Structure formats: structure tokens, C-alpha cells
């Protein structure tokens, strides 16, 4: 089982918006809290999408602690906030970014790929086959994956 809360970074959030699947992110509710740092929403997400308030299923949390790292410049300040939120609450970072994932693994923070997360949501029936087929092209414009992974995603059926 994943550890709750699930902390989504801005790439995961925006890839679901661009694909038209945003509300499917409520799928892990009520077993899991789905959260993102308040700063990610305010600075990286909300200015670029037509959405003034977060949906009910998405909780905005503030991270005010300071983490220590020998390489503070490997990640953006908001990446560190995602990691910090998951670390302090024993949760899971959902991301597509390799350096963020590597930092999570190094610090013992649970993390999963955003694309695998999306696939579980699709297979769990929160995204219909037709919506999946319609949105996958836009998803792949937003998330950079090897050609073989793209092909595998294109052939997915429930």
C-alpha cells in the first residue's frame, strides 16, 4: 500500500489538467489524502490554468520546516516542499521527475512515478476508455517518456 498522504507535484497536476482527467485524481479518496504544497498551487499551477480554487478532493498544505541537504540546489524550492511534506507526514511523493524521485529514495521517502499512478487510476475505472484515448496524446505532450513506454501506454485497455 502507498503511504498517505499522496503529495502531487505540479507536473502531475498539470498533466492531468492538460489531458482532461483532472477530477480523476480524486480516485484515491477516501483511503488517501491527496495533497499538494500551497505554494505549488499558488505559484506553479493556478497561474497557468483556469482554476481559481482547488477542488474539494485536493488539500493544500503549508510546509514551513527547513530541510538540510548537501545539495540544496538539485531541486527547486517547491520540489523540496513536496518532499518535505511527504517526509514529515510519512506520505508518498507522486512525480515524473527523476532527480526529485532520486532525492526521495535517498532520504527514504516513498515515491511513485506519476505515469504509473495515472495508469492505476485508469485501470481503477476513474478514467473511461474513451477519455483515456482522447487525452493520452496531450498527456504525452506534457510528460517526456521513452518511445517504448509511450507505445505501451497507447495500447492500454481496461
Amino acid at each position, binding site marked *: 500500500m502507498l503511504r498517505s498522504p499522496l503529495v502531487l507535484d505540479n507536473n502531475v497536476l498539470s498533466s492531468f489538467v492538460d489531458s482532461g482527467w483532472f477530477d480523476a485524481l480524486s480516485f484515491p479518496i477516501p483511503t*488517501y489524502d491527496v495533497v499538494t504544497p500551497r505554494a505549488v498551487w499558488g505559484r506553479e499551477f493556478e497561474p497557468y490554468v483556469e482554476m481559481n480554487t482547488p477542488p474539494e478532493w485536493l488539500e493544500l498544505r503549508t510546509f514551513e520546516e527547513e530541510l538540510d541537504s548537501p545539495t540544496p540546489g538539485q*531541486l527547486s524550492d517547491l520540489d523540496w516542499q513536496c518532499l518535505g511534506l511527504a517526509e514529515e507526514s510519512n506520505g508518498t511523493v507522486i512525480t515524473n*521527475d527523476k532527480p526529485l524521485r532520486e532525492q526521495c529514495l535517498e532520504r527514504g521517502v516513498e515515491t511513485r512515478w506519476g505515469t504509473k499512478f495515472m495508469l492505476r487510476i485508469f485501470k481503477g475505472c476513474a478514467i473511461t476508455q474513451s477519455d483515456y484515448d482522447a487525452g493520452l496524446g496531450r498527456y504525452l505532450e506534457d*510528460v517526456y517518456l521513452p518511445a517504448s513506454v509511450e507505445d*505501451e501506454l497507447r495500447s492500454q485497455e481496461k
Partner: protein
Amino acid sequence: MSAVNGPPSASSGPIQAVESMSNNLWGAVEQFRLLGLSPERILDAQEDVLELPPEERFTDSIAVLEEHFIDGAASDVAFELDDGARSLTKQLLPTFVDVFDEQIQTLQDNALNVLLATRDEDAEALVVAVYFEQLREAWQVLYEEALTPDGVDRVTVSTLLALNSRLMDVHSEPPEGIYADLAADAAYGEYYLAQVQDREAPSDPADLSSERIEQRVRVAGAVLAYKRLNISVNRGAELAEMSRDEFEAALLSEGVQPRQGPDANEPLWDDDENWF
């Protein structure tokens, strides 16, 4: 307030990388004594080069050198090589360029590594890294041109002189406004090197405000940092002062793929993996 703290202090900042390169150049100038050339004359020429407006400095600063050495021991400085000289150049220049390139790349790496170790000198480290990139390219272009029948373009030599003159100026104490000067010179270097190589040149820095030049250098530096360091896309965007989408577009325009996963060899679906 940042969400992360680094180690107490970074071992070496971007200005130290510039000073090291400056020291290397001063050391090289001292070697000119062995050839019977006066280092003082070279230093006078370097000061005169820096006084030229950039449009002249990057295209014809070689004229300053010619002027200073017209009746000196180096009056035989020539950029049209005969067959023998070209043959010798072919043999020696690769080593010479390799040595310089290695030195410059090491110092460039030092400047880039500052971006990992601290978040306090981002802008300065990016400017220095881009400056060194232009210097490396100028040496490379000089090397390639030296092997052609037409010889070295005056603009290439002048660009190299202009870039090195700025570095030598940092020797005793970094002048005020050094990062703005380095950013402007990097932009001019990029512009004129693109012209001599018949590549599509970016906009003429003479037409840009200093803010616009610094922004251009910042984005080039962030892309370079992303290529050379294992930083996140969001960190690159933060360095470039762009949105993530804008930065990804900047990466792709330079042929750099954002580092995202999963990889091809990783199964997308693993029944043993427990999710919900």
C-alpha cells in the same frame, strides 16, 4: 524562506573560477618573455582592448594587438598560414586547445557545482558558466578555422581576445559590475561566433537592454546547468526564472530531453507492486 538549507559554506564560488582562469592567463602572458615578447606590451594591449566599444572589441580588437606589436618582436603575427605553418598548426593546435579546454571546463564545472551546493549565488554562477561556454566555443572555432585554407577570421581572434581581456581584468580584484560585464560579453561572443560560423545568430546584443541580455544569459545558463547537472526540471525553471512549460520548451529547442520516468526497462504494471 527557502525549504532547504545547504552545507555551512560552499568551498568555491563563481568568482573564484573566474579568478583562477585569470591567473592562468596571466601565467601564460609571463611565458611570453621566453619568446622575447614583452608581457607589459600585451597588458597595455589588453587594457586598450577593453576600452573599445563591444561592436569593435568583438570584431577588430586584433587591430589593437597589431598596433602594439607593429614594430615589436611579434610583428610577424600572421593569420594567413603557409603550408608548413598550417602543417605545424595541425600538429600543435589540438594539444594547445585541449589543454585550454580542459582548464576552462574544470573551472566551468566548479561554477556550475555552486548551483548544487548553495542557492545563494545562482545568477552569478550562471553568468560565469555561460561565459566559459563562449570561451570554449571561441577556442574551438579558432582551431577549426586554423585548419582551413582561408585561415582564421579576424572576428574569431578578436572575440577570443575580447573574452580573455575581460578575464585578465579580474586578476587583482574583481571590478565593480563584473557579472553584468561578463553577461554582456557572453552575449556578444555568442552573437559574433554565430556570424563567423554562418549559423543563425541571436539578436544583436547592441539592440538589447542590459536586463534583456542578463535574461538571455540566465536562460542559456539554466539550460547548460540542466545538461551538465542532475537537477530537476523545476530547478532549471527556477534558475531560468521561467515557468516549467517555458523551460521545457527552452530545453527541447536545444535538443535536451527533460529527465522524466519511468524508463523503458521498467515495467509499467507490476502485479506485485501494492498501490491502493
